């Protein structure tokens, strides 16, 4: 379970999050929708531990433990996973090298043994097949020369391998065509499980047709201004964000 309590965050004197509170229960898929500039990406970065943000108040508890005290790698080992809106290209770092390093680093941090190479390859191949990631992609440097859709599928592949407890998907639908959206969504849906919760950040309701949320939250001006069930996404699609912008202002 993830509990975000009264989170206040600024970057270079700009207040981005203004006392944001949100709880996502185990097994729950929560969607956050909101207009541009409402602080959605900031929330995802603060959860993952990016340094540029200054947390002035509040806490983020993962199963009762405040992750704000942890470095990004410690959060990852504790079970936090951020699927980036713009996954980074890392020239010179082979995809398989990267996957193995991350998987083993997390296992090590949790006091588990390293995965043997055959086990690792079997695991990667099985996950790659499901996401229609071909073997050539795995042989290349991480994300280098990948299309937008390929990069997003690579994010989901990492999610599948790392088996996190809490997944944040930051506009995973952006830059995806219909087929890629379906593949990515199926990948996410396959990972839905009792002990795993999701925070799906999106502008559009379209993604939520594929990844059907349990709860929908509207974010504006750095706070959650309305929460509801999946039907709230449809309302937003029809009425837009105008009402929430003025309400919060």
């Amino acid at each position: 379970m993830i509990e975000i309590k009264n989170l206040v965050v600024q970057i270079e004197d700009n207040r981005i999050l203004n006392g944001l509170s949100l709880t996502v229960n185990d097994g729950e898929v929560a969607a956050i929708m909101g207009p541009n500039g409402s602080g959605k990406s900031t929330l995802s970065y603060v959860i993952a531990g990016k340094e540029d943000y200054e947390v002035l108040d509040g806490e983020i508890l993962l199963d009762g433990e405040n992750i704000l005290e942890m470095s990004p790698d410690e959060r990852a080992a504790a079970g936090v996973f951020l699927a980036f809106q713009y996954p980074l290209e890392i020239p010179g770092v082979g995809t398989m090298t990267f996957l193995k390093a991350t998987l083993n680093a997390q296992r090590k941090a949790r006091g588990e043994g390293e995965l043997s190479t055959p086990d690792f390859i079997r695991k990667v191949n099985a996950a790659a097949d499901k996401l229609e990631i071909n073997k050539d992609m795995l042989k290349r440097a991480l994300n280098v020369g990948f299309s937008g859709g390929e990069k997003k599928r690579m994010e989901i592949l990492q999610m599948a391998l790392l088996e996190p407890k809490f997944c944040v998907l930051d506009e995973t639908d952006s830059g995806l065509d219909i087929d890629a959206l379906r593949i990515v969504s199926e990948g996410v849906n396959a990972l839905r499980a009792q002990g795993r919760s999701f925070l799906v950040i999106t502008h559009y309701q379209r993604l939520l047709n594929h990844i059907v949320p349990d709860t929908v939250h509207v974010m504006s001006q750095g706070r959650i201004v309305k929460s509801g069930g999946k039907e709230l996404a449809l309302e937003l699609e029809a009425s837009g964000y105008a009402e929430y912008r003025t309400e919060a202002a």
Partner: protein
Amino acid sequence: MAEITPLRSPAETGLAKLFEATKMRYPTGVSIAREEAFRYFEAVGLPTRRVEAFKYTDLSSAFRDAAHPAEVPSAELAAAVVAGAQGFAGIEAVRLTFVNGHLIADQSDLGRIPAGVTVTPLTQALSEGHALLDQLTPVRQASENPIYQLNTAFLADGALIAVKAGAKVETPLHLRFIATVSEAFSTATRALVVLGEGAEVTVLESHEGPDGVAYQPNDALDVTVADNAAFRHVRLNAEGREAVALSTLSAKLGAQASIETVNLVVGAVLSRHQVYLNFAGADAKAIVNGASMLNGSQLADTTFLADHAATGGVSRELFKTVVDGAATGVFQGKIIVQQAAQQTDGKMMSACLILSDDGQMMNKPELEIFADDVACGHGATCGALDDDLLFYLMARGLPKAQAESLLVQAFLGEAVEAVSHEAAREALVAEIERWLAARG
């Protein structure tokens, strides 16, 4: 009229004394103009920062004293140090071992030289007046360089390696240079590799020595690559931490000849590796890469010159430098395209990653183009590790040090990838990993 005596530093005076005292002990011959070389050196002296080519690498202050040329080590001492030698140690190769700059026949594989190759110890070649000696100094510009001329003046040992036309030599030749002893000394070695038409050979060259001793190696490798021949060269500078290591590679390329040379620098408090390439024949190709990993107060200088004298030459240079602590990287590169060298295609790149506040990098790329139909370019970059990339890796669970290492390795890896010989490439990657592991 009063005679004008140039001012000399103690090191310069010392070198002059040493030259007079030792020159008669060395083999000489018409092809090796020791005396002229030393007179040249004496006229220019140890370059200070005021000399443009040494603006960033002040040899005058690096050489406070002239170290005595190293003696031939005893057989026992040689055997003991060879047993612990690490450079390219695990690689199947035919080894020529030099201890303190002297070829140690007992520790070399002179008895199993591959077919198509002949190896003559330089001392023997000089006293016999070997026919191939006139191929020494294949690139004119090298003889206008005080480091190279000092090497000629003090040349004590080396090897002459001839590869027969058409011979494709599979097993690499390993020139293994090991320094030992506890007091400062100097060495001067020269290897000459002559490749006949269509010949192919790989030469590995490793340099290692003790930390804490300010020894002064000066090593030169002269290469002539005949038409359609291919020379591959992998060099590892793992000299001791106090060494002042000077080296020069000069190569002349015939028509459609090729050279691939990659130099990895991890050792020496000051090193300068000079590469002189002469594109004498049409359509010759060169890959010249370097990777330097520096920390503490190390300075590593890579000075490169490509002289395109014939049409269609292609050269690719990629130099990567990682600077930590208060270390300094220096890159000076120059591509000359003579008027006749139309359709030359040259690209030179120097990239530096600075990991500390006190590290620095000096880049000086130059192009001198007299032909009108060429594609030449150069670039130089300098920067810190990308915070966004670090965050991405850390967000996947890699601790900061590991994330940094992965990025540094990737950065340097691009320069090392060019090594065709798989085991040698892996050995360089292992050196990079070792350096990163020590960084912690």
